[in-house]
C-alpha cells in the first residue's frame, strides 16, 4: 500500500499546481548513486528491535504526483529527487517513516520550514526539528524526514523517537546554514520562525498576505522571519529575484516609496514598511511596528 497519507503534506492543491513548471530545473532520474545513498538510510530491524519493518518503496519526482495526490507540487517547487517510505509495525502499533531526498539542504530546510507547526520536545543531532505527538519532522543535509505514529500509544511514540534518532545519526552531509543576515543581530533571535520560501506555492501556503506583492513573479527565493509577537510582531525578509523584471514588478506591487534615504532604505512610516534595494535583484524588507528599530540595526 502506498503510504500517501503520511507523506505528504502539503499543499494545496492541486490547487495551484503546474506540476512540472518548477520541477524541470531540479529533478532528474534516480541514479545508482542516489539509490545507494537512500539505501544506506533505510531503517532496519536493528533500529527498532521487535518491530516489523517493511521493504522500502521509492518514488522519483515523476512518480510523485501519483504518490502524493494534492501534495506533490510544493516538493517539486523546492526541488525534489526521491522519497523512500517504510512502514513499521508491532502488533496493533504502526508508524510511517518517509525520507525525502531534496536537491540540496536549502530545499530540505525550506520544506521543513513550511511544514513545521508548534513544536515540542527536542531531537538531538539536528538543529531543524519539530516534534509533536502527531509527527516527528526534521531536516538534515539534503533530507527531510517525517515520522508519523499512527496511534497515541507510548510504545509507538517511543519507537518513532528511536527511529528518528537512528536516522539523524545516519544522515551525513552539510547541514543547512542560516544566511548571515539571520545569524547576527537584530534577526538572530528569531530563527525558530525562519522560513525559506522558494516560489509561489510555498508563499501561498505560509505567507499568503504577501502573495499580491508577488503577482506575476514565478521565480524567487525568500528568507522570512518574525520578530516579536502580539502588537510588536514585525516581519523581516530577504528576497532574491531571478530577473530584474520580477524585481521591478515586486517593487511596484509592494507599494515601496520611490525615494530612498542615505542608508538605502525606502521607508513608509505610515505602513511601518521599509525596503532596501541591494542592487537590482535582491531586497530586504521590514514590515511591522519594530520596523524603525530593526532598520537602524540591520546592517
Amino acid at each position, binding site marked *: *500500500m*502506498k*503510504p*500517501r*497519507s*503520511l*507523506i*505528504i*503534506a*502539503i*499543499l*494545496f*492543491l*492541486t*490547487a*495551484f*499546481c*503546474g*506540476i*512540472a*513548471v518548477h520541477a524541470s530545473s531540479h529533478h532528474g532520474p534516480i541514479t545508482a548513486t542516489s539509490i545507494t545513498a537512500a539505501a544506506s538510510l533505510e531503517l532496519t530491524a536493528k533500529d527498532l528491535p521487535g518491530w516489523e519493518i517493511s521493504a522500502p518503496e521509492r518514488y522519483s519526482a*515523476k*512518480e510523485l*504526483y*501519483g504518490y*502524493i*495526490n*494534492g*501534495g506533490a*507540487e510544493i516538493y517539486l517547487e523546492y526541488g525534489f529527487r526521491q522519497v523512500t517510505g517504510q512502514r513499521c509495525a508491532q502488533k496493533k502499533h504502526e508508524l510511517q517513516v518517509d525520507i525525502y531526498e531534496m536537491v540540496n539542504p536549502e530545499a530540505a530546510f525550506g520544506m521543513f520550514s513550511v*511544514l*513545521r*507547526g*508548534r513544536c515540542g520536545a527536542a531531537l538531538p543531532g539536528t538543529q531543524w526539528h*519539530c516534534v*509533536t505527538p*502527531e*509527527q516527528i*519532522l526534521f531536516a538534515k543535509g539534503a533530507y527531510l524526514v517525517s515520522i*508519523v505514529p499512527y*496511534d*497515541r500509544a507510548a510504545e509507538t511514540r517511543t519507537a518513532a523517537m528511536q527511529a528518528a534518532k537512528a536516522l539523524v545519526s545516519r544522515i551525513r552531509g552539510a547541514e543547512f546554514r542560516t544566511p548571515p543576515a539571520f545569524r547576527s543581530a537584530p534577526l538572530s533571535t528569531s530563527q525558530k520562525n525562519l522560513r525559506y520560501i522558494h516560489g*509561489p*506555492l510555498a508563499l*501561498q*501556503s*505560509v505567507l*499568503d*498576505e504577501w*502573495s499580491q506583492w*508577488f*503577482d*506575476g*513573479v*514565478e521565480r524567487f527565493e525568500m528568507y522570512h522571519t518574525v520578530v516579536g509577537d502580539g502588537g510588536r510582531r514585525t516581519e523581516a525578509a530577504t528576497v532574491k529575484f531571478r530577473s530584474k523584471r520580477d524585481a521591478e514588478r515586486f517593487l511596484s506591487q509592494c507599494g515601496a516609496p520611490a525615494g530612498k534615504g542615505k542608508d538605502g532604505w525606502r521607508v513608509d512610516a505610515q505602513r511601518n514598511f521599509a525596503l532596501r534595494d541591494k542592487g537590482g535583484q535582491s531586497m530586504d524588507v521590514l514590515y511591522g511596528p519594530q520596523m524603525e528599530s530593526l532598520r537602524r540595526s540591520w546592517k
Partner: protein
Amino acid sequence: MRSHDSGRRRFLSTLATGAAAAALLPSLHLPLRAVGDEKPATNIADALKIPRTPQSMPGRYPGRVVEAFDPASVREGAPVGERANVMLERAMLELTGAATLQEAWLQFVGPEDIIGLKVNPVAGKLLSTSLEVTDAVIAQLEAAGIPRKNIVIWDRREFELHEAGFTAERFPGVRIWGTECKDEKDSFYDADGKLYGEKRIDKDWYYWADCEESYDEETLPYMINEGKHSYFSRIVTEELTKIINIPVLKNAGPTVTLCLKNLAYGAISNTARLHKPLWAETCAQVPCFPPLRDKVVLNIVDGLIGCYHGGPGANPQFITPYHRLLVGSDPVAVDRIGYDIVLAKRLEMEVQKEPSPRGTGFLEMAAEYKLGVADPALIKHTKVDLS
C-alpha cells in the same frame, strides 16, 4: 440524462475560442472579468445555456446550512460512528423540517435512484471522508428504503478509495467505483495498451478550457487525456441519478477544498492543466454542467476531523478535530460556512494573519452562476449543538 443530449452535442459546435494567455499565478482571484486579469477561455457559456431543472443546484434549500456539533464525535483521534449517525440525523431533520428521518431523506432521493456518494480519499487514511460518516449516510439511506445495491461510493481514483478504506469488504453490497483504475497486476493499461480510465470517461460531456499541459508517462494515467478537454466521468453522466457529496473540512492554502472542489476536480479528467490558470473557475464552472448541477441533491461536509493548514494533503501536525458536520443542498452556502470555520482556526493558530480576499473568490463566482448563495448575510446558518 438523455434529455440533455441536445446540450451535449452543442458543446461540440459552439466552443469559445481566442483565449488569453494563462495567468502566471494561482487563480484564487475573484472576478472573471477584472481588468488585467486575463484568463483562458472556457465553455462555461454552453453549460449555462442548458435549461435548469427543479432539482438543479442549489436544490431544495438554497442558502441554508445546518451545522451539527458534538465534542464526543472524535475519541482518541478517531471518529465515533454512533455520534456521527446522531449528528447526521439531527442535521437532516433540522434542514428539512421533516417529522421523521425517513421523510427527510426521501425529500432528496427515492428507492428507484442510483445514488453516488462522492467521497474524498485524496489524503489517505488520515484525512479522507471518514468511513464512519459514510456508514451513517448509508444506514440512513437504507432506513429510508434505498436498496444497498443502489448505492455507489465513487471518486476519481479507485485505488485511492481502497487505500482510504472504501473496500468491498468494508462496505458489502455497495459498489466502489473510480474513473481511474488499475487491474490486479497494478497496471493502468489493458491488453491493448489502452488506459482503463478511457473507457470510464464520456466524451460527449466535457469542460473545455483554452489551456493544456503535456504529461509524462507516469502522470498520464492519473489524467487519462491531454489537450484542452476535460471529460466527465461516466459515473456522473450515465450511471447515477442522484449524488450526495461528502467532502472533508480542509484548507487549501488560504482557501478551502470542500463541496465545489470535491465535485469539480473529482468528476472530470485532465485536471492538472487547470490548477494553475483556472483553479477558482474550475471549482465554480464544472458544477454548472448538468451531470453535476442537476444530480447533486445534498452536501455533507465531514468535519469530524479536518485540517486548517497543509491541506489538501495530510500533514499530521495540522489535522484537527472540528467535531462538526455541515449539511445543506446548497454547495455554495455550505462551502462558505466551512470556509469561515477553517479561517477561524487558521487565525487562532496564527497560520494566517487576516482573511484573504482570494479565499472566497470561487464562491462568489459560483453564486453568479446561480449554484447557490455565497453572501454570509443571506445564508441561514443553523447550529445544532449536541454537547
